[in-house]
């Protein structure tokens, strides 16, 4: 009962702080406009410093990844002196599947079969859902096509309506992991030699991913107290999605790059890998919460009394940009996806309630970790609303009412200086994003590169609506105890050549008509 009350209290905190910040500014503007100007000046300088700092981290992360591009990870693995032998390591690649088209699964398996790693050390697990009526047939078909390339392909179908679970990736992955454990034990594979990579259906690992992962696993003495996080690059369908969706998803990639430089703070996100033994020891992925990808890290963190870390790999995995049926549907899909990610704020409740009575972790570590989550989520929900919405509104209003006030006059000046400085950051983003753009299909016009450059200037306009607003939405739902179900992002692969051809024909017809 007491624990429930604590959880309820913790649920209120993020939303309360975010809303308080926004409402405080609004109320202050009515009663003490000069105080708002002062607050905004400090806030803008704080964000300028923070953004410049993040840009440095982004540049460092980019340098770190590019400097290791040409490393032969497999060679390193084979020659590494470790307490474990490279040959003994087995990889489980777990794909959670729910309503993804056959093509998405087969494309991912095609990429997997081409990776630079001995395939006889890779067991693929295809985890379908009973809710997806033709899941078994779909996965069986994929298994039939690809079984010859891997050591084995295990298919599991997660039953629906299991008590205590919410339908989603975590529950499905846990069900599959339990079946995998049975198989591994039956075959007498020591669990401490098994690495599990929990992937979305559209995740395509880079060629050296498993070699790099194995190297880091073997080279890390605390390998069972470490998760291994690749850089998720959302670019599989980059040529066929609207510019705003590209910006949002590449923004997420950049955020992960920045996080990768804050070694002690890195938390797992989306597709990642870890010791299978650890997964079993911590009782698998959470089944009753939405943000399974980060919560598994915190479960391990608690299990190992705070001695758990994430090792950021230098090799990426490639994923799809969330896209809808049309432009407006893509906006809705992006919004729902970002809201689900922002629902990661539930980790604050999970961790907060778990840490209160935990005597094994020091108070400073507890406070730092909780503050880290709170800081990330509150800033996510408020910064772009304050910078690109509230500040211009305050400036507009002050121009009418407080036009002779020096502090408002200077606020406008500082705002313009900061926005000009942001252009430098945008140039850095343009430069780095070019590295993540795959080769252009012949069917796509080269003018798209112009769009790839100009798209970054959309940030001030979309960051509030597709960045902060979904986060604020998630926090408000949590605050009012309104549960958010797992939203599976729609994955679809367009018949790209056909789509482009049709568009070209339409454009020609339009030109002729004009």
């Amino acid at each position, binding site marked *: 009962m007491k624990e429930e009350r604590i959880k309820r209290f913790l649920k209120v905190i993020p939303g309360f702080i975010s809303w308080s910040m926004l409402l405080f500014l609004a109320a202050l503007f009515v009663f003490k406009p000069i105080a708002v100007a002062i607050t905004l000046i*400090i806030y803008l*300088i704080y964000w300028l*410093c923070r953004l*410049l*700092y993040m840009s440095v981290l982004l540049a*460092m992360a980019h340098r770190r990844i590019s400097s290791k591009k040409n490393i032969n990870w497999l060679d*390193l693995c084979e020659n590494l002196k470790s307490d474990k032998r490279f040959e003994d390591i087995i990889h489980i690649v777990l794909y959670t599947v729910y309503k993804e088209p056959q093509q998405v699964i087969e494309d991912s398996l095609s990429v997997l079969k081409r990776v630079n790693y001995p395939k006889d050390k890779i067991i693929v697990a295809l985890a379908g859902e009973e809710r997806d009526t033709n899941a078994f047939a779909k996965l069986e078909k994929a298994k039939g096509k690809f079984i010859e390339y891997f050591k084995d392909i295990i298919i599991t179908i997660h039953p629906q309506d299991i008590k205590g679970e919410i339908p989603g990736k975590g529950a499905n992955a846990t069900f599959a992991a339990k079946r995998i454990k049975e198989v591994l034990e039956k075959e007498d594979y020591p669990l401490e030699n098994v690495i599990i990579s929990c992937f979305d259906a559209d995740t395509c690992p880079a060629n050296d991913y498993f070699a790099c992962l194995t190297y880091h696993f073997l080279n890390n003495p605390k390998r069972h107290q470490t998760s291994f996080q690749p850089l998720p690059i959302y670019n599989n369908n980059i040529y066929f999605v609207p510019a705003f969706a590209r910006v949002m998803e590449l923004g997420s990639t950049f955020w992960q790059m920045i996080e990768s430089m804050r070694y002690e703070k890195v938390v797992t996100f989306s597709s990642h890998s870890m010791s299978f033994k650890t997964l079993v020891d911590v009782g698998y992925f959470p089944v009753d919460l939405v943000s399974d990808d980060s919560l598994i890290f915190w479960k391990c963190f608690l299990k190992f009394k705070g001695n758990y870390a994430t090792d950021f790999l230098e090799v990426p995995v490639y994923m799809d940009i969330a896209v809808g049926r049309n432009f407006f549907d893509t906006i809705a899909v992006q919004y729902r996806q970002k809201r689900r990610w922002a629902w990661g704020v539930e980790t604050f409740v999970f961790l907060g309630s778990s840490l209160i009575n935990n005597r094994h972790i020091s108070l400073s570590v507890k406070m730092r970790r909780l503050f880290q989550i709170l800081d990330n989520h509150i800033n996510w929900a408020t910064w772009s609303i304050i910078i690109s919405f509230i500040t211009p509104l305050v400036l507009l209003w002050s121009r009418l009412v407080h036009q002779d*006030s*020096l502090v408002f*006059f200077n606020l406008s000046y500082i705002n313009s200086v900061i926005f000009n400085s942001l252009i430098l950051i945008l140039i850095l983003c343009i430069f780095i994003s070019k590295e993540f753009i795959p080769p252009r299909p012949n069917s796509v016009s080269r003018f798209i590169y112009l769009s790839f450059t100009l798209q970054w200037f959309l940030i001030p306009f979309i960051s509030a609506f597709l960045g902060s607003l979904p986060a604020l939405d998630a926090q408000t739902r949590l605050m009012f105890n309104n549960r958010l179900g797992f939203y599976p992002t729609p994955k679809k692969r367009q018949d790209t050549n056909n789509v482009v051809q049709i568009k070209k024909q339409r454009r020609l017809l339009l030109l002729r008509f004009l």
Partner: protein
Amino acid sequence: MIAMEEKKYPILRKIFFWLFSLGFIIFAPIVLFYSLGYKFDMHLKKFQRTGAISIKTTPQQVEVYLDGRKISESTPYVIRELLPQKYTLSLEKEGFYPYKIPVEVQSSHVYDVDIVLLPKMENIEKINLDFNVYKFFVIRHIFSKRIIVFTDKGIYLLDEKFENSQKIATLNIDGPTINTIEGLEEDKNQLIFWNKNNIWRVKISQSHGEVYNTASLIYSTNELIKDVFVALKGRYLIIQEGMKIVILDIVNYSAFFPILELKSTAAKIFYDSESETLFLKDSLPSTDKSSLFKINLMEYIYERRTD
């Protein structure tokens, strides 16, 4: 090798973290104090609150002088960190009259100066027609303006830029009479113009040939014509004449109707042709007070019809 390289990143990150944190700690109070108008006076060894002058001019690129000292070569410009007192601001640009303005700067306030400089009148543009011009009127025409010019060779229509001119009518009125014209209305391809006792009408000639319409006198009175409005779909003129209001049929100008007797010599009328409403300021009966009246002619017409 890889581990060695990995070690440098956390160190670099910490250095940058403290660098930017320090930057914020130092920079934020300085910018904040500066924004609030505080300035450290090195001589007095204390902070003083200042104000600013924001200068915008039309045209831009104007030299700015403060108390005779050149401050800036161009505008827009902001003079900051000014102690609260009176200053004289001068704005100078070649080809324009210098502009001086006294400015009282208050602490934490911005004195906003937004000035249109007056050009020195040189190379004044002349109409490219060799006529004796008696009178002219500028009228609104759709989205632009047109100029009606009364000359010794007839009435001309000009565009604003003086680029196109077109003769629209001949005149059979002598120059001194034309000089007495007080008002002009254009409606439905015709011009109505008047002086104190007469009203003329001329249809605008559309052809560019030698045949032009001539102005005809449609109304003449011994009373004083104060105002004329085109009314009721361009068919009638509403005339304030002496102590009465008369309505005159423009086409059949033998038909005219004295519709209202005015009470005061200070009475004033305005006719809104869009709503076909006559507004009238006149004295109230048996008092010294004036009031405003409104007559919607179209409503009157429809009410009478239904009656």
